[in-house]
């Protein structure tokens, strides 16, 4: 490709600028800031596309608002093209035309034409500038050698830079002898963890060991438990046997001697009841019999009275017949006597009432009674009149006395001293206490009062003559009264005389005349009582005689009965005697009958008794005893024996075969006890063992559980796994980088080697030229690059002076570009690459470059004016003279 014209619409500092490049070798001169880089950027941008906004400074947007972009005219494989690029998407809008064929082309056609180049690759291969060279020249020898070695690869600088970067990155991850890199650290951690795990792993074997131990312990424990069970059973057995040792021994004895002791007949409870019943019957019968015999003797007795009575039976019976009548008589007598006493008391009562014996007074006749009644009535009337008159007189007398008293009192009274005294006091007061008129008035008043006192009686004497006339009247009345009283007295005396006369006549003088009438009734009653008294007396006398006669007939039995006292008593005695006898006779009769019955009864009981005794004796003899006491003793003994046997049998049932063996083995309680203690001791020891085992088991099981639950090992494993994956990841990263580095390097070396012959050929000529023939040959080895001097001496790159090494590099770089350009024909753009060269060498270099233009267009940018003299003026384009809308033509 050869660029023939640039037409810049607007790009960076350029606008509306056209640059025509007619030469294969074109030197573009411009001082700094003249726009060398801008032009390079313009060419690459139009060819490969504008930069995006991401790289704003690489976009070179026009400063003056011109259209962004421009045109490029070039020839390629002999045909002319026109390429226009203005702002647009995907690197700008492209207009592309084959001018030779007058054919419109597309952006795609452009890409196809440029393939496989892109902007970056183009820059890498076809552009080399001072800056890139400067970077190379600051490398140390070793690195420079590396660069030189790999110069044959495309973009080797960048690749090498990348491998450097990658190496650094990789080293940050891991260095085989590093200390702090993450992979190193992790591996160290992993090593530590692995050690920890190893020790933690022992947990497992520990677990297994403990588990084994647990099994062993459990087995032991099972043995101990079984033994302990046996011992416990034995202890129980021995203790049981010990507590009833004697009984058990007896049982055994009983079992041995059981047959022998069964000779005599045992008394059963039934037997005992039967025999006891028989015995009780005998005793009861005997008692009954004894009692009956006692009664028999008592019943024979009879009183002496009875005997006397029975011997005088007839006489007694005869008299006894009269007895009820006599008793009635006696009773009658008593009532008669009581009546007599009542009559006598009544008569006596009359006499007491009237105070005289009524026996001598006669009853008054009816005429006499009438006369008496008249007399008495008259007397009564007179007495009442007399009394009234007396009262009248007494009244008159009283009035008279009162009046005469009054007149006497008035005549004898004189001066009234009370009034007199008061008048004196008033005068005195007036004299001493008052004065003036008051004294005078007071004195007069006093005198007046005193005067009243002196003259008062005289004033009263005017009433006396009236009283005296009344007294005279009363006195005459008194006289009349007195006369009437005398007359009455006379009448009364007369009446008394008549009464007295009547009394004498009827022998009533011993009685007061007023009693004469009332006494008549009493007197009549008295006489009737007297008469009935006399009748009663006669009756009494008759009855008394009859009684005495009857009693005298009982004198034959007087002593037996003990007769004495009055009739009543004797009758009562007789009555009782007879009653007693009657009872006794009846009793005697009954006793006789009883006696006969009792005799029969006794005989029966006696018979029963005999029988009972026989059967009792028989029963006793059955059991070989003689009496009831020994029988009872035997029975008690038998019962005790029976109980013992029963208990023994019960005990015997409890005894197992083992018990019997034990009992046979130990003859004494002591031996058994000793054996028991020994077993207990064993048991205790076993229990201790058991407990210890339990403790041990629980500890071991706990340890197992702890181990099983322990996450330690698991955690470590997981940590290890985590570390492993971390490490793996890091390793992968590291290996990726390492291999990538190797890959790049290998590629660079391969590419360099592949292109070596072509490059070396070009480079040798350039190098020879720039060194002015100082070096003739360049040799690539696997390790390094060597040059052969004109003298034939071979030098390693490292041995060259820095200037020479740089020249070698430039030579090789140029050679590489040339070789690459042979493959893809593109202009070579060099930007002051020979800045470090001295004049001579620069001249040589430039002339060498010109030689290259046979095959390639070379655009050489420089700021060094010296360079201008080494080329034809026609090949020079002064950028400083560029103006807008000017067409640079040379």
């Amino acid at each position, binding site marked *: 490709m050869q660029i023939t014209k640039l037409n810049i619409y607007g790009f960076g500092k350029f606008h509306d600028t056209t640059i025509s490049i007619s030469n294969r070798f074109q030197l573009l001169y411009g001082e700094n800031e003249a726009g060398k*880089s801008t032009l390079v950027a313009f060419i690459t941008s139009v060819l490969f596309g504008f*930069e995006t906004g991401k790289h704003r400074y690489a976009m070179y947007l026009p400063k003056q608002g011109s259209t962004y972009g421009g045109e490029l005219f070039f020839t390629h494989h002999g045909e002319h093209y026109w390429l226009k690029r203005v702002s647009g998407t995907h690197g700008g809008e492209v207009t592309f035309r084959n001018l030779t064929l007058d054919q419109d082309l597309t952006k795609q056609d452009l890409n196809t034409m440029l393939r*496989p180049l892109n902007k970056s*690759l183009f820059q890498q291969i076809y552009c080399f500038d001072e800056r890139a060279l400067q970077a190379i020249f600051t490398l140390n020898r070793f690195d420079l050698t590396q660069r030189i070695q790999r110069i044959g690869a*495309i973009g080797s600088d960048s690749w090498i830079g990348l491998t450097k970067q*990658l190496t650094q990155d990789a080293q940050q991850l891991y260095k*085989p002898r590093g200390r702090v890199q993450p992979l190193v650290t992790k591996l160290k951690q992993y090593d530590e963890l692995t050690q920890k795990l190893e020790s933690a*792993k022992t947990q497992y074997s520990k677990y297994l060991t403990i588990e084994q131990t647990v099994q062993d312990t459990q087995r032991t424990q099972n043995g101990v438990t079984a033994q302990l069970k046996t011992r416990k059973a034995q202890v129980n057995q021995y203790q049981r046997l010990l507590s009833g040792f004697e009984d058990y021994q007896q049982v055994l004895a009983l079992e041995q001697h059981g047959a022998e002791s069964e000779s005599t007949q045992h008394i059963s409870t039934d037997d005992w009841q039967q025999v006891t019943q028989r015995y009780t019957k005998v005793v009861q019968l005997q008692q009954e019999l004894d009692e009956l015999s006692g009664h028999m003797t008592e019943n024979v007795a009879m009183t002496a009275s009875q005997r006397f009575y029975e011997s005088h039976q007839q006489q007694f019976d005869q008299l006894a017949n009269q007895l009820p009548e006599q008793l009635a008589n006696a009773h009658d007598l008593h009532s008669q006597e009581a009546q007599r006493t009542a009559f006598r008391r009544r008569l006596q009562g009359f006499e007491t009432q009237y105070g005289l014996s009524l026996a001598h007074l006669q009853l008054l006749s009816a005429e006499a009674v009438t006369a008496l009644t008249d007399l008495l009535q008259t007397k009564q009337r007179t007495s009442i009149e007399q009394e009234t008159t007396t009262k009248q007189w007494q009244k008159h007398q009283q009035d008279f006395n009162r009046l005469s008293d009054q007149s006497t009192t008035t005549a004898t009274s004189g001066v009234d001293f009370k009034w007199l005294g008061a008048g004196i006091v008033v005068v005195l007061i007036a004299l001493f206490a008052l004065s003036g008129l008051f004294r005078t008035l007071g004195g007069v008043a006093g005198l007046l009062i005193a005067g009243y006192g002196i003259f008062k009686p005289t004033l009263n004497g005017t009433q006396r003559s009236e009283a005296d006339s009344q007294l005279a009247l009363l006195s005459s009345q008194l006289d009349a009264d007195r006369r009437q009283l005398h007359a009455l007295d006379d009448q009364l005396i007369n009446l008394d005389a008549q009464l007295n006369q009547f009394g004498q006549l009827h022998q009533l003088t011993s009685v007061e005349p007023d009693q004469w009438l009332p006494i008549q009734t009493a007197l009549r009653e008295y006489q009737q009582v007297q008469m009935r008294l006399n009748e009663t007396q006669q009756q009494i006398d008759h009855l008394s005689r009859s009684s005495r006669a009857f009693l005298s007939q009982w004198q034959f039995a007087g002593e037996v009965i003990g007769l004495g006292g009055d009739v009543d008593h004797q009758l009562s005695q007789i009555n009782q005697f007879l009653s007693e006898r009657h009872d006794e006779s009846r009793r005697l009769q009954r006793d006789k009958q009883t006696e006969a019955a009792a005799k029969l009864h006794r005989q029966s009981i006696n018979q029963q008794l005999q029988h009972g005794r026989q059967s009792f004796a028989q029963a006793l003899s059955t059991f070989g005893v003689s009496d009831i006491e020994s029988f009872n003793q035997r029975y008690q003994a038998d019962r005790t024996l029976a109980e013992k046997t029963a208990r023994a049998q019960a005990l015997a049932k409890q005894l197992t075969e083992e018990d019997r063996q034990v009992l046979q083995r130990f003859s004494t309680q002591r031996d058994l006890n000793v054996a028991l203690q020994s077993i207990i001791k064993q048991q205790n020891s076993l229990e201790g063992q058991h407990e210890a085992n339990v403790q041990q088991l629980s500890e071991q099981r706990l340890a197992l559980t702890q181990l099983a639950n322990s996450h330690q090992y698991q955690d470590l494993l997981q940590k290890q796994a*985590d570390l492993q994956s971390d490490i793996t990841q890091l390793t992968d990263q590291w290996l*990726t980088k390492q291999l990538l580095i190797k890959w790049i390097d290998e590629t660079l070396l391969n590419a360099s080697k592949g292109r070596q012959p072509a490059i070396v050929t070009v480079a040798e000529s350039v190098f020879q030229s720039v060194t002015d023939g100082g070096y003739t040959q360049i040799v690539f080895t696997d390790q390094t690059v060597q040059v052969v001097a004109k003298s034939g001496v071979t030098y390693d790159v490292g041995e060259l002076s820095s200037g020479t090494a740089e020249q070698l590099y430039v030579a090789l770089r140029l050679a590489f570009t040339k070789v690459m350009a042979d493959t893809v024909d593109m202009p070579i753009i060099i930007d002051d690459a020979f800045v470090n060269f001295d004049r001579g060498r620069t001249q040589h270099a430039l002339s060498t470059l010109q030689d290259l233009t046979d095959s390639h267009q070379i655009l050489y940018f420089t700021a060094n004016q010296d360079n201008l003299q080494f080329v034809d003026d026609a090949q020079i384009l002064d950028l400083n003279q560029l103006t807008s809308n000017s067409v640079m033509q040379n």
Partner: protein
Amino acid sequence: MKFIHAADLHLDSPFLGMQQLPAALWQRLHDAPFQAVKRLVATAIEQQVDFVVLVGDLFDRETQSIRAQVFLAEQLQLLIDHHISVFVSYGNHDHLTENHVLTLPTEVAVFSADVETKHFTTQTGERVAISGFSYPQRWLETNMVTHFPERGTVDYQIGLLHGAIKQGDENHYAPFTVSELQATHYDYWALGHIHKPQLLASQPEIVYAGTIQGRNKLEDGPHGFELVSSSTGQLHAEFIRADQFEWLTLNIQVNADTTDESLMSQVENAIIDAKQSVFGLIELQISGIETLSPALVSRLTDGTWLARFDQQQRRRYDEQGAWVYSISVAAPKQTVTYAQLDAKYWAQAGDAVFTPDNLQQTAGRLMQYDFLATHIKQDETLKAITEAAKTELFNQARLEEEQDADHQA
């Protein structure tokens, strides 16, 4: 007749590379294998199976976790308590050793190092013969199938085999071929060792039960155990899920317009679309980075973007039922533009550099670590590193271009 076939419980194996999980989620993940075993036991009891066979690698002899073993013992005891017999054969990870004292209940039937046959009669009177063996050591090169007895006169004969199909010359895990197994005329082959459940053949069924809970991205897809039941004289396995976490990969296509934020929502949408019945542990496979801004690619590859995304998923993982734990970036399909001229050199050099030998040599002392050596020796590692290197180269080159552009200013 009904039984459960499970294998490769690997109860005590740790999860790798899950450090970034929130603590609660991490705990759930950590408990998941245990939960899965519980689910197995619950299913066995609920389904009233006759027995359970566990075909090796119940735990890791190398790690020997007491907790895992005690847990397993408890769970097996539960089965025994419910009158469910348990048959165990040990595999390469839990092989028998001299001092083999395991805390498994005594009722558990364990196969010895020699092939032996245990007989079992179901409650309905079906006679079952179970043949199997345990690994006596870590490796077993012998073809054990030839040691298995001929089919007996039982109703069902079952073979337990922990091993891998014969491949190439080096076979450390009881190598066999499917046709060998078929030739035994057994009614069912219960296989262990391969962690992904798979059916090798169906006449009779030859089945890898797979690990009960996937533990890494290689054990993706559903995991659980096989519920095997008889039907018309044949045994048929039904896969029962028991896992609580599933490992999966989500492919995310990015382009020039993708930004950090848009990528986040894109990923979230993809998670919603891929919604699983169990919690998803997701690796993002990002492709199309060629046009992505180099800076974003860097953030994707150096973990910056994921760290940001973690903030977001920390809030939402429960609701989303998923967690993105890793990002892998597919290497760019095209090479760096300006490397095109040198393309053959790059390819040449790449071929020379990205070799297992060179990788191991580069790793140098790191190979002293077994786990690293194992990792580095894996083909996947080299592949991943190559991809990563390409991506980085590509990205670095693009970054370089940008820088160059700046330098032009």
